[in-house]
């Protein structure tokens, strides 16, 4: 059994004091500890942004990749070795903006990874521009008249694409978030966990206090997330009451489950077959 401190990294955390990311980091460590997955057995892949720094701040195998591209990279790694436990740390800009196309197709593939989207509804690393999830009307230096595009709703988009695990967490409730992450890792297939994460520097609208007044804990409600229509309704809720918890869950075969040859073992452990290559050549 691992110790909780086994997941600590001595790398300096380059986030603002009070950043919502600290709560997510704590919840991740707690979830991994509770699932008893040792650091050397975890692979965390990230793109670019404040969220993408996360894997450096806990002990794990990691690939800190390009802006928006964590999902295809994770997809390739999972296909190569589907026995790996893979998590992705992404943000609202990284996952829903730059990587929007990859998000759509990763959900469609139902690749078995746990996708944590640190959704602070603003660009942090580039200093405060609107993100796809910024509320309509939010004023920034770049959007001086307020955001005029519709707000991207990752939960209902993922559900409409057939996602099998759609959840929302809040970085101010780490125990609750840890529980979602544990369920997400256990779920076979793509698990989307959109995490409400206040940005103390650039988002003065969606603050910790703002969220604390609004979040509605579905675990406490003993809500059963198996009804698509009910889940769609919850996914669309925003404003005075914001549901957090597992919104929808449905088991179905993941991408690598559907590739029959992977039942014999991971691609990386397959055997080189020179005689068969020779046969293919000779058949010409």
């Amino acid at each position: 059994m691992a110790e909780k401190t086994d997941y600590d990294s001595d790398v300096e955390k380059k986030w603002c004091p009070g950043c919502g990311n600290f709560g997510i980091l704590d919840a991740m460590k707690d979830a991994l500890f509770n699932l008893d997955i040792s650091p050397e057995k975890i692979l965390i892949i990230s793109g670019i942004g404040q969220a993408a720094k996360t894997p450096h701040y806990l002990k794990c195998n990691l690939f800190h990749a390009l802006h928006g591209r964590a999902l295809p990279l994770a997809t390739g790694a999972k296909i190569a070795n589907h026995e790996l436990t893979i998590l992705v740390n992404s943000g609202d800009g990284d996952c829903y903006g730059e990587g929007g196309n990859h998000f759509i197709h990763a959900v469609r593939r139902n690749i078995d990874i746990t996708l944590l989207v640190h959704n602070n509804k603003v660009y942090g690393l580039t200093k405060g521009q609107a993100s796809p999830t910024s509320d309509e009307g939010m004023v920034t230096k770049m959007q001086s008249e307020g955001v005029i595009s519709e707000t991207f709703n990752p939960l209902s988009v993922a559900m409409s694409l057939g996602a099998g695990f759609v959840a929302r967490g809040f970085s101010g409730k780490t125990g609750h978030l840890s529980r979602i992450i544990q369920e997400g890792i256990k779920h076979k297939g793509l698990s989307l966990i959109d995490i409400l994460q206040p940005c103390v520097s650039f988002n003065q609208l969606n603050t910790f206090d703002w969220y604390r007044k609004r979040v509605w804990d579905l675990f406490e409600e003993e809500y059963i997330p198996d009804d698509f229509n009910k889940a769609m309704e919850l996914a669309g809720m925003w404003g005075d009451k914001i549901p957090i918890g597992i919104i929808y869950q449905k088991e179905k075969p993941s991408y690598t489950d559907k590739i029959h040859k992977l039942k014999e073992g991971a691609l990386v452990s397959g055997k080189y077959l020179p005689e068969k290559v020779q046969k293919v050549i000779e058949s010409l």
Partner: protein
Amino acid sequence: MSVDISIMIGGEAGQGIQTVGELLARVCRKAGLYLMAINDFESRIRGGHSFFQIRISDRPVNAPHHRINLLLSLDRKSYELHKEELLDDGIAMMEKSNSLSGKNVLGIPFLELAEKSGGKITSNTVAAGACLALLGAPVEIFREIVSETFAAKGEAVIGKNLNAALAGYEAVKTFSYKYAFEWRPDKSKGILSDGSRAIALGALAADCRFAAFYPMSPATGIMAHLASAANEFPLVVEQAEDEISAINMIIGASFAGARAMTATSGGGFCLMTEGLGLAGITETPVVIVNAQRPGPATGLATRTAQADLLFVINAAQGEFPRFVFAPGSPAEAFETTARAFHLAEKYQVPVIILADQFLNDSMFIVEKPFSVPDKIERFIACDDDIKNPSEYKRYAYTPSGISPRALPCAGKAIVMVSGNEHNEDGHTSESIETRIKMVDKRNAKLSGMLSEMNPPDTYFPESEILLAGWGSTRGAVKEAVDMLRKDGINAGCVNFSDLWPFPADSVKKALQVCKNFYAVEQNSTAQLGRLIKEQTALSYSGAVLKYDGRPFYPFEIADGIKKQMR
């Protein structure tokens, strides 16, 4: 008498031009002849104009010929478009009901004969039979090839096509054709392959486990061949949502321990450049095929070019080592692909293979057998190879620049990789000292990489003038040298396939001996010539450049050189 016959089969897309062409090619191969064939088509599925041009010889041929001995027109347009290329005593054969009153036109009722033999669908077999009969090909060989070709479709279909084949033979029985020759059936000179298949087989022979792609001409064929073989191997071929995804998928797969590749053309490669840089800075081995076509942007989607050389050498922001290879034939495409996987892992760098539409879509007799290694060397470190696995550093400084590469989640060693500049551990670092040391570490690989580079292929290397080409034009350039020498010009050639890191010393050695050298390339700015000048300070005296999207004919090169010499 030596045999050198070119047959063109022209028609609309969807008329079965390739079916006829491939039947002819397989008969010639079976008879022990050499051949090469080009595929010329438009970016459409039906209609328009396409042709398949096959050159048959009793000596090796590696480039198309510009004059046609026999034109099989499956529509009227093909005759109008190509009659000027037909030799004076050549024949233009076409459907009788379509027949135009033209020079050397031979009308044969293909459709009527097909209806009698087994239905309209067999009319291409009738046409192939008539072509072969004109050339004097033994009917037995054609019968065997027809039986093999239609074997999967059952006895009835074979029977109908055999009837059709005979009907074609009978139809031209009484016709005497100047270019008929004596067929001396011999054993096949090699396998029949296009460049796409050779690259796919090279990947299989290198134990490629994962390939991701987004469809794009002329690279799709490579992935189609891989996908068709994938069931037999521990190999997954995934169609990505775009090229950006494709390259990031292969980086992820390679990171996790699977040999991985992608194939695209210039436009897709543009989208991959960000990922190329990621492979560079994270030192992740990947193989990327860029099957070139004329650009920029969509350019000419189904045609050929060699205009991405300087682009791929320099692609992506920043600086990092990479290999760039441009194979000169299918045999070399096979070897180069297998070697690309090996070198990518040995040096932990991206490897780019520059193919093109001509190489990918043209068929050649490959004499040198594709040889498959018994074992694959992986250059991967496991816990036992690492002194203290719990202290493992993915980017440990070493004199060669190559750090032991462990795989994630494979043991005690924790593997941390970052596209941000990083320290030896793999964590992000902005330290001045680390930045300099990491750039130097990556660049340190260049001297080892350079030692892997083969010198250019040469032909009459001691000549007064040398033609310098690269990649798929090798066959045409060599044949142009033969033509020039026949005309009393003391010419030779130097053909490059190992292009980056640039083997400057061996290039200097090869080029210093001549009085003048000329760049011969399928681009408009002499990219190889410019590269040689930059890397060796040797200047090309002129250039023969073709950038109309069609492959070089040897005579064009020879004529171009003569003009330059004046």
